[in-house]
């Protein structure tokens, strides 16, 4: 054998092993989701009589649980869904706007609170994320009890807005500090005020990262469990709480809970695919 064929063989081997690993991990990612989706189409017996793997071959898919969710149980099941959507989107909008205002101020003007300068204030915002939610939940519970905000949409919106603000400030301040200053300076020379510059120059240039920030804040609010568990009971119940409650009240009714879980997982999956072009370049700025 000549060295050329050996080299080619090695290249094939290398490429082959790369693909083996990539496909194996793809299987690891997909298999649980496959199981979740197929279970929501299984009849009771197909669940109880041990694992059935392939639809049409091992079991006959049925859509009756899905039909039931959208007809008979519409009110009890879809209200938390609406709650999650409303609370998630309003709080994400608030954290994005507050984050934009704060990071614009912090990257364009000079501040000084005692010993804290701009970078320290940004760090102060971001470092709020270190705090475990369990530590603030006791106080918020007592505070909401006095204010009557327990089991209230507004209550959750406020908590999530505060909770996602560090993330929003982190992403947006990084982008704002990278934007070329020359365009803004040119506008300033032409006599535009800071607000005109913000609305007509900065926001249009920043719109991709604003969208990304909004969607990410939405997903975090959508996925939260601990705050919703403690601060809501029925009226403002969100999707994760509904799933957990169904699970503990009805026992192993896997088909129902699977269908609900698919519904709960749907928005994040759609957002992941929508966000894919921001993922690598930009959404997560490394270092500083």
């Amino acid at each position, binding site marked *: 054998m000549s060295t050329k064929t050996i080299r080619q063989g090695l290249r094939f081997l290398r490429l082959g092993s790369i*693909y083996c690993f990539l496909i194996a991990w793809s299987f690891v990612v997909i298999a649980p989701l496959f199981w979740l989706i197929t279970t929501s189409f299984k009849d009771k017996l197909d669940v109880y009589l041990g694992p059935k793997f392939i639809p049409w071959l091992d079991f006959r898919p049925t859509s009756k649980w899905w039909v039931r969710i959208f007809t008979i149980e519409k009110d009890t099941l879809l209200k938390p869904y609406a709650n999650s959507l409303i609370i998630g989107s309003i709080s994400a909008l608030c954290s994005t706007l507050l984050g934009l205002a704060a990071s614009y101020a912090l990257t364009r003007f000079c501040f000084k609170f005692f010993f804290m300068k701009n970078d320290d204030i940004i760090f102060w915002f971001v470092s709020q994320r270190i705090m475990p939610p369990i530590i603030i939940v006791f106080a918020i519970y007592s505070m909401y009890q006095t204010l009557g905000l327990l089991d209230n949409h507004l209550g959750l919106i406020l908590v999530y807005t505060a909770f996602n603000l560090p993330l929003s400030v982190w992403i947006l301040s990084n982008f704002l500090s990278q934007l070329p200053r020359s365009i803004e300076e040119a506008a300033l020379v032409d006599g535009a005020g800071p607000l005109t510059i913000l609305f007509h120059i900065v926001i249009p240039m920043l719109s991709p990262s604003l969208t990304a920030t909004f969607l990410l804040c939405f997903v975090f609010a959508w996925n939260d469990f601990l705050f919703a568990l403690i601060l809501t009971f029925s009226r403002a119940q969100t999707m994760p709480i509904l799933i957990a409650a169904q699970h503990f009240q009805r026992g192993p009714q896997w088909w129902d809970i699977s269908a609900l879980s698919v519904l709960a997982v749907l928005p994040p999956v759609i957002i992941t695919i929508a966000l894919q072009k921001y993922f690598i370049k930009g959404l997560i700025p490394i270092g500083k």
Partner: protein
Amino acid sequence: MLTPGVLIVLLFSIFPLFFTLMLMFGQVIFSEGKMLIKFAGLANWQRLLQDQRFWNAVLVTLKIVVIAVTAEYVLGLILASLLYQRPFGSGFFRVLYVIPMLLTPIAVGYTWRMILDVGRGPIAGLLKRAGLSPVGWLTDPHVALYSIVLIDVWQWTPFMFLLLYAGLEAIPKDYLEAAEVDGASGWKKFIYVIMPLLAPSSIAAFLLRTIECFKIVDIIYITTGGGPGQATESLTLFGYNVGFRTFDLAYGATIAFSLFFMVLIAAMFFTILTRSLRGIRLE
């Protein structure tokens, strides 16, 4: 423009922090529907340090953090460096690999609960067909903790992958070309050129993931509920159980604070590591 952001953080993070601090040194008494806090000194801390259940929760949390974060780093690094070589279809794999990270943890926990079920789960079914005895993935006290780690790794490896991939992309191409000109092989290039340049992103990824992993609660709540016994009860779950199941708010606050200290120490460790690394580079 800064004021609304600062106000909301003060109201929802700093004020609650001080409130919890106050609870920690007190005792909550409910009288005539009102909540009163009586000063109790260090009683809560004394109780905490002697509580077997607390030390168990510390150990459980630390085990999960150390094993899960390390595994996530290794897997994330492998995936990132494989996709960095741009094999055909890498765009597709990249999106697919990110998906688990953004899924609702409750749905993830529930899905894995079905998969790991002893009687009706697919893994149990396959083991049975292979003639092996079933494993109580979530019911055996020796195994349950590792099942939790497995679920956490499934969900959060994407995060490590994403950060490390971004770190790899940020490495200037001429460094790698220079190494190639000097005759470095693929492995040597990886160990002597890429890994040192990747150190800042590695530390950042470790830091962020460690902070988040310390707070683990939802997956445990759904899959094992902290059991069997207290084999998988993390600190957040312990704090929740004490604070909102038995309504001992003061003791719950003490538990929460001990978690906060641990996270703070971990965060400081990684920050100092970054600083010292920067120092080395400047020399």
